[in-house]
């Protein structure tokens, strides 16, 4: 049927012509789509997703909440939220984005609520709010009640709402489909070539505007909270088109991933009094952070755990064979277990067979979030360098780096970014397509790059094994490009990545079918994991300082010399060109009220 003998049989089966193409149908992509539909009813939109249905997107797994200052709040102020975000970013977020996002936050919460999101409520029936790490009143003095949430499934609430609105407005979904090549004409993006996995057909989608929102990419790490599909495909499309990616060295590790699957065990467990212990059951955080102890910031706690493990005070999990420390919840009162941490404790019971009321829980730092991504301006227009944009190409969500997070993200600011920036991009796209020319016919060379790559996979007949390369990559990235980095390790990692890339050219495909061929898709993904890992390692090597989640043992302090964003270009794996983009300091430069809080400030908690 769709099993092919010769790679030369690869072809584009059909052409679709919506006005807007959205690649990645998670929270950001569909918030954007909904905005376009509301502003310009009848706009034809195709949304492509790698998963079976938009509801299965990674957004759905987010737990915490969305930070937003309610204008009716008598004590909280937007400027406090802006300050917390700037401080959390270790002075490398862009202040124009911080301002735009924090100022529109509440309006976007209300939008979600009016469109049916099931927020948790106060006694008065209003949206309930709870405190979260790093969000404070009065420039860092006391915790703020600023996080709007839907129980412990806020991401699902957002996803269901924006998906529902997209359906309501007639957005057409191509599920279980992957964008494999971006299309350009005279420097303008005019769409993409998409492989539909369920029938094995390549389709060219030509659109006036293309929005990329493919999310994060931490599957190259041995322990990761990301879903199976987050393999950096979108970022590789950007790189292959000769465009830059930004700040990829900034990878957030959450300190408490559940050993094995890497599932997140929320900060709430330590907030309720959980204590981290090493193999001798010593509460080791007291030694590193005598005041904040177990509630020190995420990057700090992750480094402490890794130090314990590296100095031989960690354990090795008998089943998963992974190093870890313990999270002790045994001393917490029964009512806390029953009412406040029930769901998360359920993960320990379900996935590692541990009863947290009586047993120690195995945890280890887990790769969680990419602060960097495709560089955009404040309207989500993708940039080809520090100054110019690519007409017709937009990005939002975790995929994009505008950037709200700099080198470290605060909890609850990620979901907020999806909905605020998704809306901004929707607005911008609506205005653009009103006047933009039609994309015209399919570019002559459309598909040539991806067909050449797929030919390589289909014709390869080497002895190498996919799983061995994948596993070697994941251990390598965890060891040498993980929580701790240094010049020696990074240099070794870059050499080993080159070797792995070479080995990946000598795989052998098990089946030549194009229909739901997991093996073929995994080869394609492996190339992306290797390429993006290379950019992370090279960017980390070049940044000879420590900033937020990027920690260099050989340069443990932040340095004014590196007060810029990293731009990286790489059309062939390993052949990287680095450039810089300025950090936007517009709040500081405007010299308005409290501007001095937005200078280069110390990051102490």
């Amino acid at each position, binding site marked *: 049927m*769709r099993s092919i003998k010769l790679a030369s049989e690869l072809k584009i089966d059909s052409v679709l012509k919506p006005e807007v193409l959205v690649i990645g149908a998670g929270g950001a992509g569909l918030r954007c789509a909904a905005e376009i539909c509301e502003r310009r009813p009848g706009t034809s939109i195709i949304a492509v997703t790698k998963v079976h249905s938009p*509801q299965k997107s990674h957004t759905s797994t987010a737990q915490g909440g969305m930070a937003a200052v309610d204008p009716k709040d008598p004590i909280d102020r937007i400027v406090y939220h802006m300050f917390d975000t700037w401080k959390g970013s270790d002075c490398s977020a862009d202040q124009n984005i911080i301002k735009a996002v924090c100022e529109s936050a509440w309006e976007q919460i209300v939008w979600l609520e009016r469109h*049916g999101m099931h*927020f*948790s409520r106060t006694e008065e029936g209003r949206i309930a709010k709870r405190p979260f790490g790093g969000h404070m009143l009065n420039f860092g003095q006391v915790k703020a009640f600023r996080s709007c949430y839907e129980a412990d499934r806020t991401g699902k609430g957002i996803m269901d709402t924006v*998906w529902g609105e997209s359906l309501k407005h007639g957005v057409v979904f191509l599920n279980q489909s992957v964008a494999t090549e971006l299309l350009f004409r005279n420097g303008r993006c005019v769409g993409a070539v998409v492989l539909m996995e369920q029938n094995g057909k390549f389709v060219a989608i030509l659109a006036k505007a293309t929005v990329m929102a493919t999310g994060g990419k931490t599957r190259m790490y041995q322990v990761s909270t990301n879903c199976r599909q987050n393999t950096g495909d979108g970022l590789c499309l950007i790189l292959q088109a000769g465009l830059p990616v930004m700040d990829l060295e900034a990878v957030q590790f959450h300190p408490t991933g559940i050993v094995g699957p890497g599932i997140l065990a929320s900060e709430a467990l330590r907030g309720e009094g959980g204590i981290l212990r090493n193999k001798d059951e010593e509460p080791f955080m007291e030694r590193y952070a005598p005041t904040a102890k177990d509630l020190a910031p995420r990057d700090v706690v992750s480094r402490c755990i890794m130090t314990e493990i590296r100095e031989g005070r960690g354990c090795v999990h008998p*089943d998963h064979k992974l190093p870890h420390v313990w999270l002790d919840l045994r001393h917490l009162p029964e009512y806390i277990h029953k009412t406040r941490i029930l769901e998360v404790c359920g993960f320990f019971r379900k*996935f590692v067979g541990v009863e947290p009321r009586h047993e120690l829980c195995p945890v280890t730092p887990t790769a969680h979030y990419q602060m960097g991504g495709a560089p955009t301006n404040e309207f989500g227009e993708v940039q080809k360098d520090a100054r110019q944009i690519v007409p017709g190409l937009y990005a939002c969500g975790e995929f994009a780096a505008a950037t709200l997070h700099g080198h470290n993200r605060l909890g609850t600011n990620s979901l907020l970014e999806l909905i605020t920036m998704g809306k901004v991009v929707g607005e911008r796209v609506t205005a653009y397509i009103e006047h933009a020319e039609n994309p015209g016919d399919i570019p002559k060379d459309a598909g040539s790059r991806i067909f050449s790559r797929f030919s390589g996979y289909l014709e390869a007949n080497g002895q190498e094994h996919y799983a061995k390369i994948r596993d070697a990559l994941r251990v390598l990235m965890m060891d040498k490009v993980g929580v701790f980095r240094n010049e020696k390790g990074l240099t070794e990692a870059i050499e080993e990545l080159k070797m792995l890339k070479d080995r990946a050219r000598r795989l052998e495909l098990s089946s030549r079918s194009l229909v739901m061929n997991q093996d073929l898709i995994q080869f394609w993904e492996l190339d992306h994991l290797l390429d993006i890992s290379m950019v992370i390692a090279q960017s980390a090597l070049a940044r000879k300082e420590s900033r937020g989640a990027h920690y260099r043992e050989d340069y443990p302090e932040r340095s004014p010399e590196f007060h810029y964003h990293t731009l990286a270009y790489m059309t062939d794996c390993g052949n990287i060109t680095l450039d810089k983009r300025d950090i936007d300091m517009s709040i500081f430069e405007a010299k308005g009220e409290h501007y001095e809080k937005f200078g280069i400030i110390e990051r102490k908690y």
Partner: protein
Amino acid sequence: MSQEYDITLKISRYDPDTGRSWIQDYHLKAGRILRFVDLFRQINDEQDPTLAWSSSCEHAQCGTCGMKINGKPLLACELLVKNAVELFETHTFRVEPLTIAPVIRDLVVDLEKAYDRIHLVKPYLIAPAPPHPDGDEYRISPRVLKTYEEATRCINCFCCSTACVTTQRNYLGPNAMLANIVRIMDPRETAEKERLDVLHGENGTPRCRTARACSFVCPKEIDIAHFIALAKEGAFRRSL
């Protein structure tokens, strides 16, 4: 502690390129706390890269990896080997795709087709009530929210639809029924008549036989049958 089991998986295979279906046996050694999704990955890595299966979040939050194991619809990501051995009292497991949609390959079903039934009930506010006079959010008391909150936790894994004993193929199915009922109970929805017409239409409540299989298998432990019972009695707001 790191006990291993000798496991046999008898997996339904289907090759769309040739139209052939068969059952294939895989023997593997598995640690006690591996999940069934880990076993499939182990088969791909060590024995057979062609076996196709679906997953996404792999911690029971997205509902992609629903399948039948020894006849029971469940999420393969939350079934640990030792629990499966205890639950089914065997080391041999029959693994089949869900029956709610055509199979694309092996254990991968066409969820898009299954979702058609969810789309029929319009999983969004059809006609939202006018905003609160203050211009911000609607006011919903926690007590009202509590009456339908459990139903909002559904992830559309389609385990309930697979378990449902109703033989009529056109039945919307428990999860689509639930998606409709949630929005009848949500005070922000004003399109009540349209929703009730679908609810009690020929593919709605009359098809449900109250066998409660949906509640029994739901991985999120939602008492779906309770909500369908409320619907049958029209007792959505009685408990207030």
